[in-house]
């Protein structure tokens, strides 16, 4: 943490071992690009390399749980390795592996073999950015990680080069992304000017002493940047177009991994603020309330707009916006309850409860969204349409596919017996920590659940209630896709009937690196000079 300490090569070398998941991803990324030099126009080779890299990354992330030495800060405190970050990295890399599976299923046959390494390289690159996002504790690293995740995503969104919608979505994504990055960077510069440090812990400590208007504006601008990655209202306009235009595996990846990483990054920042909260910091509660309102508006807006969608990908896009809203609402509680309105007692356990609930939600959300999108993919391949009116009579043509998709949609809605229900229950449980404000959040969440039922049942309605007028033949989807869907639904059922295991797992891993003790924030000049002198050590 202490920038002033002598940074030595040996330390950096040692630090490298702690970020092995990222290292493996970068190595795999480079190897994938080089693969065509070994075997031209091969898809299997880069695919194998990418899968191997991802598996090594999974193992590296898992192995960091083996010893306490593997946890801590690295690279002079700009990254943090803790159970929380490693849990998300395991989840992320496993999820990326499943995205590869979805890609094989859906796009491989349509993709020019020469493009395969490009795709894989971009996917891995985005994964690197996302795994850095959850570890970042320094504003610059936060910015770099976010951009590392975003840049490949822009290209991935437009990967189907001949599709107009893809290009349109991609362009929209780039424009929105760069504007929001600029806003975030501007906010960071203001915060740095006000706090004199780039570390989120230092900023939190400074803010505890008093939030100046300059810092408030800076924090709000940074929140806008986070909101873009989370596709929170009003920074959500890219989301439906990108989701509709992008190939479905990219859509799935963006809807889960990208949002999950942004959520974790935000959680870490909020937790740092909550832990530094002073005794009478009503402005701190203001930060939480701002996030909570953002989440409530996002959830409600996403659900209301989803009511009118007829394209399954747009429908799921708006659904994912509302789910981001639910998670934001819970995340806000980390700050609100950290500085509870009731009794002035600092609820130390609140942060862990909130983080555990959100982690559980991300796990369940990953599987239900993956399942819903996989089912949509299989259907789109078969019927050639993403319009839900094309689902008519599916229960007769392909009863298993219809049933599995229904299960995923009902889990997204929150039907008891499926994982999504417990996700919402644990979010509500953590919201209740915030007293009166928490109950307002719960009311918003329940109201939204009611609205969302209507549009989640819309595909179900066509699949089961509307007969097929074209008399299309029965079909059984490809084995791989069906297997993936079965896995997703099994996980949802398992978490739905016995949520204990996963919930305690998520709660156990919700341990964040504690705020380092900062005695006196260094004056502005020193910090700047130290930063300037930093490259000399490299």
């Amino acid at each position, binding site marked *: 943490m202490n920038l002033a300490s002598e940074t030595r090569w040996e330390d950096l070398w040692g630090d490298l071992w702690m970020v092995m998941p990222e290292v493996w991803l970068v190595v795999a990324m480079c190897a994938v690009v080089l693969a065509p030099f070994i075997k031209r126009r091969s898809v299997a080779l880069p695919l194998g390399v990418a899968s191997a890299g991802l598996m090594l990354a999974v193992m590296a992330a898992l192995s960091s749980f083996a010893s306490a030495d593997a946890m801590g800060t690295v690279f002079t405190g700009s990254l943090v390795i803790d159970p929380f970050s490693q849990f998300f990295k395991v989840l992320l890399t496993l999820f990326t592996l499943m995205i590869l599976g979805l890609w094989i299923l859906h796009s491989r046959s349509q993709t020019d073999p020469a493009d395969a390494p490009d795709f894989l390289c971009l996917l891995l690159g985005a994964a690197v950015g996302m795994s850095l996002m959850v570890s970042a504790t320094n504003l610059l690293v936060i910015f770099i990680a976010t951009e590392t995740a975003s840049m490949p995503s822009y290209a991935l969104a437009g990967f189907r080069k001949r599709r107009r919608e893809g290009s349109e979505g991609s362009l929209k994504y780039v424009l929105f992304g760069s504007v929001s990055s600029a806003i975030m960077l501007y906010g960071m510069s203001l915060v740095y000017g006000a706090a004199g440090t780039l570390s989120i812990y230092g900023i939190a400590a400074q803010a505890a002493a008093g939030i100046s208007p300059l810092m408030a504006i800076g924090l709000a601008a940074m929140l806008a940047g986070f909101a873009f990655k989370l596709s929170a209202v009003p920074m959500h306009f890219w989301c439906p177009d990108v989701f509709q235009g992008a190939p479905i595996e990219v859509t799935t990846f963006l809807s889960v991994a990208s949002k999950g990483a942004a959520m974790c990054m935000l959680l870490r920042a909020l937790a740092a603020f909550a832990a530094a909260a002073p005794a009478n910091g009503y402005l701190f509660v203001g930060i939480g309330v701002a996030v909570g309102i953002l989440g409530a508006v996002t959830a409600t807006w996403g659900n209301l707009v989803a009511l009118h969608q007829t394209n399954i990908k747009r429908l799921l896009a708006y659904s994912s916006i509302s789910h981001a809203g639910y998670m934001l609402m819970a995340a806000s509680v980390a700050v609100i309850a950290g500085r509870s309105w009731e009794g002035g007692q600092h609820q130390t356990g609140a942060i862990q409860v909130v983080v555990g609930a959100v982690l559980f939600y991300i796990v369940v959300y990953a599987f239900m969204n993956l399942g819903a999108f996989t089912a949509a993919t299989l259907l789109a391949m078969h019927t050639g349409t993403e319009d839900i009116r094309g689902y008519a009579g599916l229960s007769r043509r392909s009863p298993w596919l219809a049933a599995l998709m229904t299960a995923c949609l*009902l889990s997204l809605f929150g039907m*008891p*017996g499926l994982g999504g229900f417990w996700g919402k229950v644990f979010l509500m449980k953590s919201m209740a920590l915030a007293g009166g404000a928490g109950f307002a959040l719960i009311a918003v969440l329940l109201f939204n659940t*009611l609205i969302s*039922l209507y549009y989640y049942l819309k595909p179900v*309605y066509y699949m*089961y209630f509307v007969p097929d007028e074209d008399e299309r033949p029965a079909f059984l989807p490809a084995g791989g896709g069906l297997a993936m869907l079965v896995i997703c639904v099994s996980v949802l059922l398992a978490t739905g009937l016995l949520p*204990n295991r996963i*919930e*305690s797992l998520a709660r156990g891993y919700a341990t964040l690196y504690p705020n380092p003790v900062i005695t006196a924030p260094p004056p502005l000049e020193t910090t700047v000079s130290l930063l300037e002198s930093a490259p000399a050590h490299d």
Partner: protein
Amino acid sequence: MEASLLNWMIFTPTIGALLCLIVPGKQQARWVALISSIVTFLFSVELVIAYYGLSAGGVQFETAVPWIAGINAFYRTGVDGLSMPLVLLSTALSILIVLASWRIEKATKAFMALYLLLLTGMLGVFLSLDMFLFYVFFEISLLPMYFLIGIWGGPRKEYAAIKFFLFTLAGSICLLIVMLGLFFLTGKAVGASGNTWVMVSSDPGTLTLQSEAVRALFAMDDGAYWGFAQWAFWLTLIAFAIKLPMAPLHTWLPDAHVEAPTPISMILAGVLLKMGGYALMRITYPFFPDAARYFWVAVAVLAVFGILYGAMCAMAQTDWKKLVAYSSVSHMGYVTLGIAVMTRTGFDGAYYQMIGHGISSAMMFFLVGVVYERAHHRDLDRFGGLWLKWPGYGGWSLIGFFAGMGLPGLCGFIGEIMVLLGTFEAAAIGNVGATSQATVYTLGILAASAVVLTAGYILWMFQRVYMGNEKPEYGEFAALTGREYFIMGTLGIAALVFGILPILVFNLTDPTFTSIMAILGIGG
């Protein structure tokens, strides 16, 4: 032994549902459904025999297994006098309903599987003692119903299905808010270990939401609890009034009934509506007795409004099934009224009305279905002279509809008369606070006058359908089958038996109702 029996009973239909999906043909699926509902029924008979041997009024055969440690939720099931008769009603009706759906040819396997799943949901609602488990079963019973109406229903089935789902879900959400509030309030009162969802339990060491202990803790902070209790009372009342249904939240019911296939109408009217009344007696009133006493006039007025409004709507119908559906709205109004006046007689009457209505409404819907299957319409003005065509059917119809009407000697009478007596009793013993006796009498007289309306629409309907000359198109009607006679006969005999021997039900419920009265602070 009985505890595991009880849990087997809940999940036997689920096993049957899975089997239904596996078996190759339609016929096998029907038999699987029939056998699993018979097994479920036998389990419940075994249970009631064991229950009769016990004199205590508390919860029996309790199972408590920790389920979700994070929120202190238990898998807690058990049976007491409040649930036992309804469980028996559900399992017995379920056999008849499988028989009634024997001729369903469209996706038979899926139909039977969903139906059995619904049965698990219903039994789970009646038998769960943990509020969270209750909620889960409450929700799980929605989904099969949605599909059963939406796939096998009539012309406007989609509209009816989604309306049913959205209405009931809105209610569930009201319930969930109160549940969370209770959970956190108990935690606040007793400390983190006190967070509880347990509604009632036989274990004296368990903190239950119905127990005096929790109430005493709430009483420490009178103002805060009172504020919560007022909201919570109305929210749970709305949640269960939608299910019951209580006017003006009943509008989903006529749609659902008209569109649903006959056996589904039977289960909907026969059992699903009772979940609302059961939950009012299990949750709303024992948890918030003060609020219930404070607001009793409002609830009673709504109930009387429902009785009158339902009866008048029924009178105006030309669709036979819609008439029966509105008669349900009217009859369930008596249930609300009996509970709202908060007298022992009222509670007993309301409960008996649920059992009686479970028998008579299922029978009425079946009687309509039998004719609809052959005539393919339900227009009352196009019928007439059915008695001449089928004298036997006419005889059973007489029992069924007159049981619905509340003729003495049949099951509908006892509930109605006890509710009315209980209403007047409320004025006499002043249970309901300082409200003037005039209010009570007015409500009682209005509710009693609805009996005339009921007789009016039933008799007028009977006249239009059964009396007069036989219509020529009846010649094409297929003869009634033995299966249909069996269903009518069983329900008709049950209507007679429960009209003559109310003791069969009250023997089971009495000790439990005494303890509920103690919680409500009512002597008797």
